[in-house]
Structures are given as C-alpha cells and as structure tokens.
C-alpha cells in the first residue's frame, strides 16, 4: 500500500496488539476454567464423576444435583438444603446494607461539609478502622454482644456487619462528597436548609453513583462473609455460606461432588448477579469518587 498520508491513519495489527489479545485470552481462560469445571460437574451423575474425567463434558445430562442442593442436602443434622441459608442471608444482608450505607452516607456528609472540631481526628480514625483486620476484634465484640444479650441473634449479626462496614464506607462517601462543589452546600445553607434538610433534598439526589458502589461492596461483602456469620449469627440464622460449608465438609457418607458444585454456584449467584447488572455503575461510581468532580 502506497499513498500520500491523507485522511485517517491506517490501522496495523502490531506485535504489541497481538500480545495483548493473547494475554487477555489466557486471563479469560484462567478464570473461566474453574467455572467450567463447576458447571459440568454439577450436571454429571456420581458414576460419571467417579470416572474422573474432570474436563470432559457430561455424557448424559442429569439435573438432580440442583434441587438436591437447594432443598435436600444435609447441612449437619438437618437435611433441608441451602434454602433456609439463602433466606437467612437475605435477612442478614438487606438490613445490614441499608443501615450501614445510610449511616455512612450521613457520616461522610458530615465529615465533608460540616467541618466540626475533631473532624480530622475522626477521619483518621476511620482510616485506621478501615485497615484493621477484623479478626482481632471478633472476640471482644463477641463479649460485648453477649453482655448486651444480642449474641447469636439476627440483630447481633446485623450490628456486626454494620460496624465493620462503616469505616470504609464513610471514607468512600466522604471522598465523594468532598468532590462535589462546596458552593452547592453554601447555596443550600443560604436557602434555609439545616443539617437534615440539606442532606435529604440536596445531597441524596446527587449520591446515586456512590450509593450504588457502596451497596455493591456491602452486598457482596456481607453475602460472601463466612467467619462473622459462623461466629455471630447463631444456629437459627446461619447464612448461606456457612451452610454451604456444612454441605461440602461431610464427615461421614459419600462426598457428592455434583451437589457440592451446584450448591457453590447457587451461593455465588447473588454477588454475580449484582456485578452483572451494576458493572457499568460500579466503574462510573469508582471514577466519580476517586478522580475528581
């Protein structure tokens, strides 16, 4: 091809580009492989699984492991499948997300706009809180909840999730609000807004992107949590992850790998679903909070 340079520059396939595609392909395969194995294993019957061709497609599709994982598999002494765990997880996640996101938004708003005395100290405290591994606080918190009489109850586990979510969420909200033009806040004060009114009428309507980020973080975090659910939820409120563990860790009988796989996929569906529907918002929210406004 020969010509005088004119118009759009022609695009060539460079070595760098080929390398990039290869890299992307390898990454995709790397992450898809386990999912592939999980899905096909869940669709095999036990005889075929024992044949040990882990990567082969099932010769005959069998779906029985799915309903079994959902409603019949044994989690300890009861054999009701994951269903009760699913509803427990919803009962834990929904209030925890609402309370922690709501409180963090108010905290972030106060930190960003109402520079009270000690605000910087509080800000530092949040930073500190966000980076402490929560395992070190499990035992003291357990004693506190026990003293309050809410240990091993639904409110108990909700409180724990709210407490652990708030430092990082407060920081996220604060950083987002700091990026909003301060003049808006000033105008609202002159227009007669007080602390609550400005938050409700001016700040909340602008908080959609960051709220979505916070909700995604909290939903996936709380749904995937195992340790806190195991320790604080109590026998009646065990979340799905704890029950999944009970299904998989059988001490007696036969390990039904197809049921284990179905149960695992079922448990991870909620976070997956949340990412799929909100991916676009997630990126937008991260950008809005991180770069600048």
């Amino acid at each position, binding site marked *: 091809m020969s010509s005088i340079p004119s118009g759009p520059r022609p695009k060539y396939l460079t070595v760098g580009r080929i390398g990039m595609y290869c890299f992307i392909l390898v990454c995709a395969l790397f992450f898809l492989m386990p999912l592939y194995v999980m899905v096909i294993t869940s669709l095999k019957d036990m005889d075929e699984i024992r044949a040990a061709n882990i990567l082969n497609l099932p010769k005959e599709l069998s779906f029985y492991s799915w309903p079994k994982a959902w409603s019949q598999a044994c989690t300890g002494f009861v054999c009701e499948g994951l269903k009760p765990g699913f509803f427990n997880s919803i009962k834990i996640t929904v209030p925890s997300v609402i309370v922690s996101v709501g409180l963090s938004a108010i905290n972030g708003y106060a930190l960003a706009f109402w520079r009270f005395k000690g605000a910087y100290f509080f800000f530092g405290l949040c930073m500190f809180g966000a980076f402490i591994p929560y395992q070190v606080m499990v035992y003291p918190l357990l004693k506190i909840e026990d003293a309050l009489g809410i240990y091993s109850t639904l409110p108990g586990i909700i409180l724990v999730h709210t407490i652990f979510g708030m430092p990082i969420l407060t920081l996220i909200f604060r950083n987002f609000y700091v990026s909003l*033009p301060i*003049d*808006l806040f*000033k*105008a*609202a*004060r*002159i*227009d*007669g*807004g007080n602390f609550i*009114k400005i938050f409700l*009428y*001016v700040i909340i*309507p*602008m908080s959609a992107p960051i709220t979505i980020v916070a909700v995604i973080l909290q939903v996936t975090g709380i749904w995937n949590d195992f340790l806190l659910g195991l320790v604080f939820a109590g026998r009646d409120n065990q979340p799905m992850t704890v029950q999944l563990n009970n299904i998989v860790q059988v001490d007696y009988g036969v390990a039904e790998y197809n049921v284990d796989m179905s149960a695992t996929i079922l448990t991870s569906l909620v976070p997956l679903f949340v990412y799929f529907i909100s991916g676009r918002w997630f990126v937008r929210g991260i950008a809005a909070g991180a770069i600048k406004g």
Partner: protein
Amino acid sequence: MSMKSSVEVKNISFSYGKTEILNDLSLDIKEGEFMVLLGPSGCGKTTLLNCIAGLLDLTDGQIWIEDDNVTWKEPKDRHIGMVFQSYALYPSMTVEKNLSFGLRMMGTAKDLINEKIKKAANLLQINELLKRKPSQLSGGQRQRVAIGRALVRDAKVFLFDEPLSNLDAKLRAELRYEIKKLHRDLSNTMIYVTHDQIEAMTLADRISVMKDGLIQQLDTPKQIYNKPANLFVAGFIGSPSMNFLNAKFDKSNQNIIVGNKQIDISKYENINNMINDQKVVFGIRPENINIEKNENSIQCKVELVEPMGADTLVWTSIEGNPISIRLEGSSNFNLNDEINILFDINKSSIFDSKSEERI
C-alpha cells in the same frame, strides 16, 4: 441611595488556623448601595463576603445587617441572597424547583411561591426554562437562574461572588448590563466580589480595593481611577496600566528628575507636600500623555504600535522605562518614528517611593 447603613462590618478578623486572612477590617455599606470588593486572588475579598453571608464564623468582630446584629445568626436568617461563580444550581431539580427551594424550606404557601417565581422569571426572561434541568442550560442561562434564586427570596442584601467569571467575554458584558439594570430597578443593597476591574468600574457606586486582607482604598470608581491612594491601587486599576517612572524631586526647579531627563511638575496639586530630594514614583495613565512639542516635552522613539480598534497604543520608553500612550484609533505611527510627548501633570499621580502612598 440613602445614608442609612445596610450592612456594617465592624472590626472583623478571620483566620484559617494560624493563617490570618482578615484583620480588624471595617466596612460600612449604605442602603441601596452597589459595593464592589475588588482585588487580586488571595486578597480576602471572597472571605469577607462569606463572613457577611454567615458561611464562615468570625474570629473577632461583628456583622450588622439592617440594624440587626447577625454575627451569630445562620445564613438563612440574614435576609441575604447569594450568587456564586459556579452557579451552584441544584443539579437534580428543575429551574422552577431551584428557584422555589428556599421558599419551600421556609414553608411559604404554594400560591405565593408561584407568584414570586413568575415575577422573577419575567424579570430575568427565563420563563421558557422553568421546566428544564440545570444541565440543559447554557452558562448565561444558569447564572440568570442563580440570580433568580436570590431574587425570589426577597433578600435585603444581594451577595455576588465573581458571578461572571465563568462566562465568555460577550456574555459577561451582557449580564453585567443586566445586573446593573436589576440594581437600578430593585435598588437593593448589593455586594459584589470581582477581580475584574471593568466590572468594578461599571457596576459600583463605591469600590473597595483590597490587598492582603486590608482595604487599600474605598471610594467611587472615578476617584479610584483618577486619584489612586497608593501605588498598588494605581497599578491594579486601569488597562493598559498606569506608567510609572522612578524619580527624584528637585524643589528649586519644581522638577522631578528621571535619569538625565527633567519633568516639570509645578502644576501638581500637592507639590507643597513634597520635600527636596524626595524619592518618588511618578505615575501617569496612557491616555494622559499627549503628542505635542513644547519646551517641556520629551523626545523619544516609537518602539511598538498596538492598534486596538477604538484606540491605538503606542509604546516608547524614557530612560529605559517603558511608556504606553493611548491615542485615537485613527492615528498613524510607524516603528522608529520620532515623537515628542507631553505629560498632563494635572492628571498625574505622584507617590512616595518608600511609603508608596499618594502625595
């Protein structure tokens, strides 16, 4: 404009931590007066406005609005309306909701709100925009809405914080005219912060020129332009700016000496306040230099010509100091032409070198 005070700033101080922004500043603004706070960035003018609005807490002093000590009052209780450089319209609300927000917060009756919005919208010609969101408006339209928001609140005092700085030159001139008209029609007290001297000159009844948190001069635009109180004001006001020559006063000949040139200043109004050998800065505006030949004129060479349409700016120099001369647009000069220039001493300003104060 009456002689009654509308806004009184009494000995206020303000600091951010240890950084002192305002120190013992006082300002008395009359009812119906258009006061412009003018100064370079960082001079404290916006801080002063925010203090008047109640958005910042004073370190010391008092603020009075309409014979009412509002020092400890919330911004909403000060009967003020404020217009911001960034417009600060609530992005999630329509223009109508933006305008009515303040009234709704106060719990005003719906009929009254509608009536007030209608009136303000008519005045600012934003009737067609009422149902739109701020993001669907141009910069000029946004600023009109922002002014409207102050209008509907029946504010006694309007505060403007560089309202035109984000607009392009044409729109700025247009809205400047509108604000001036608004003041003529409403005759509210207005306090207007800007760093743009044209805005200050055209709008103000009085200008308060500020620097480093201090008021350098408080006077009418005319006085400030013609009789700047010190070297800073003289240099800050006027574009192209005033020409300055470092000189020494020779009492016996009533001359000032610049290098080996002499300029007769016997006609200067305050010449009697000057002492022999006093070091001074001689200031003269470009339009107060004439091309004229007589025994007092100075001969020099044209070094640069800037035609600006209405006028032409001719640059030359005296003893190495650049001098600009503003002439008619039709005047015709070429590079290296020999010219004789004559200063209009009546309109010149002379400052003491040390104190930088006007003599």
